């Protein structure tokens, strides 16, 4: 047994000792600061994941390891501060093996989220947010943290790598179409929407009775890779991405929404490779989506349908549709199960009678155990297939232990 696997076994066996919660309560007490005199309330909190992936290689989604068993520890540190009645600050720092598992095998520390949020009017929910934060598109970003996600992985639309790239251009449609028979190039290719897309910018959100909305202007497209999310490091482009979602909450049980996003997605490094007279700003990703959620009693159900269109140099417009339906059911007070069906379909390469990527599906099933109010563990199995495509593994198993305090 590898040291990392031994560590995971040790972590699981140690959870029983922590079930009482007293340790976490004490720690929580000591990481909080409140001062009415200063009008400042601050809280430091933590979440740790220990995840064991067992993929059939090459692994599905954004798991980039080529190991048959891959261990990913992660520490998330959250700092929240309220200054006065209207101003809040939030940061999320992560130490792990890359934003996506295995992206930085030797370890990485990042500030994945940081933003300042102000409530404009005293008696209203109108908020303005500035910084680096998850996208307003769809409904999954809000429950993407491991504690809230019934699964270990994201839905296919949020992690299944397509053949379109923001940095490697194919010289023709024919050459581009050949990519569909290659293994996913996770370094250079993009999904429809990359994880929660912690890109940088400004947002406005509000809730008026049972209608809610959020609009944002960000530095990168929703499909962009984590390395270009932080405007403090890569700058803010002249053509940003505009994203918005309008949602309805007609009753506590129901959540309905529609989202749109439009912006450029190519990196500046491709400028010299573009057709004469064009620039990176001429090539955009336009995405629309609808989402619906229902929850009551022991059930929580979410679904999304997302369509996207990439304008690709030398190729033309490429369209894809991807969606999922996800349900979580609490079997007992401590145990729950979840099932998710994902499906994706692709349009043809312009001028060719061939789809630009392989149509595919994936079913995910998970079982979870809430050990205590601070600890839970999940076991997931995924079975997927892309029609006629051999290079990607069909199976993935994952075991995850999460602690928050």
């Amino acid at each position: 047994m590898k040291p990392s696997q031994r560590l995971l076994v040790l972590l699981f066996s140690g959870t029983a000792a922590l079930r009482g919660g007293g340790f976490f309560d004490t720690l929580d007490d000591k990481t909080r600061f409140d001062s009415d005199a200063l009008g400042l309330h601050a809280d430091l909190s933590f979440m740790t994941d220990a995840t064991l992936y067992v993929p059939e290689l090459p692994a599905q989604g954004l798991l980039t390891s080529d190991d048959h068993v891959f261990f990913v520890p992660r520490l998330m540190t959250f700092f929240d501060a309220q200054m006065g009645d209207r101003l809040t600050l939030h940061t999320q720092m992560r130490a792990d093996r890359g934003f996506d598992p295995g992206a930085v095998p030797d370890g990485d520390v990042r500030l994945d989220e940081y933003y300042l949020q102000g409530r404009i009017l005293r008696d209203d929910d109108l908020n303005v947010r500035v910084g680096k934060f998850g996208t307003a598109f769809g409904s999954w970003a809000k429950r993407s943290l491991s504690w809230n996600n019934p699964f270990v992985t994201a839905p296919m639309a949020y992690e299944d790598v397509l053949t379109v790239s923001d940095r490697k251009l194919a010289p023709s449609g024919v050459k581009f179409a050949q990519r569909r028979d290659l293994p996913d190039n996770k370094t250079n290719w993009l999904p429809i929407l990359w994880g929660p897309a912690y890109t940088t910018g400004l947002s406005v959100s509000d809730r008026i009775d049972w209608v809610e909305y959020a609009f944002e202007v960000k530095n990168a497209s929703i499909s962009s890779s984590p390395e270009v999310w932080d405007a403090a490091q890569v700058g803010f482009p002249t053509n940003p991405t505009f994203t918005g979602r309008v949602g309805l909450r007609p009753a506590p049980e129901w959540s309905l929404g529609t989202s749109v996003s439009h912006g450029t997605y190519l990196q500046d490094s491709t400028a010299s490779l573009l057709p004469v007279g064009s620039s990176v700003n001429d090539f955009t990703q336009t995405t629309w989506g609808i989402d619906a959620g229902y929850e009551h009693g022991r059930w929580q159900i979410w679904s999304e349908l997302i369509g996207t269109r990439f304008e690709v140099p030398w190729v033309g417009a490429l369209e894809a549709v991807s969606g999922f339906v996800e349900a979580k059911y609490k079997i007992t007070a401590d145990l729950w199960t979840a099932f998710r069906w994902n499906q994706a379909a692709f349009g043809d390469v312009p001028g060719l009678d061939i789809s630009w990527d392989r149509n595919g599906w994936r079913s995910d099933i998970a079982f979870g155990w809430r050990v205590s109010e601070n600890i839970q563990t999940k076991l997931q199995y995924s079975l997927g297939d892309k029609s006629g495509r051999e290079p990607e593994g069909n199976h993935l198993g994952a075991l995850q232990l999460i602690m928050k305090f």
Partner: protein
Amino acid sequence: MKPLPTLLLVFAGVHALIADGTIEGKLSVESMKPSPSRPGYLPSPTKQPVLKPESAPAIVYLERDDGVYPRTKTNETVRIRQSGYQFRPSMVAIQTGTKVDFPNLDEEFHNVFSCSKAKHFDLGRFRKEEASPEVLFNKPGVVKIYCEIHQHMRCFVVVLDTPWFVKTDAEGKFSLNNIPPGDYSLKIFQPSERLIQQRVTVTDGQTNTVNLTR
């Protein structure tokens, strides 16, 4: 847990009366720790403002050495409301065998649950005006209750075999009535989860006074 109000027991005057004796005392508040949640300070917004949590009192109770108690308080159904995104009351003492219901008075879902050893339960998402599920507490112990959706919400249910318990009032005063004469352990459970205890004897026709310190 988040900081909770703590009480320093400065003085407890215990008077034991004959047969149906009464035990009285007073706890003085030394300091109040910050509440577990500041109104308006939440990781996710709520539809209505978050109101302040109730100040949690202390639970004072008597235990007998033989562990045999009359079951005088198990027929009632105790109510813990969710109102203003807080549990109200935030601390309750009940006798084993008592049922508790959890009506939701807010406009949004709550999801009440506990992982405590004395009681595991999860009521799922339920809304305002829905019939509240009843939970039977049949094992003694401290049950910490949370809302899965609003993580700042918390509540203690102190499940006791003894029927001789009382909550202190806002000034820290308590009065335990109709106590049979005998030897007891007087225990005080504080919001900080600290337990203070002292042996007391209730003797016919006499008043016993004890001083308890942390």
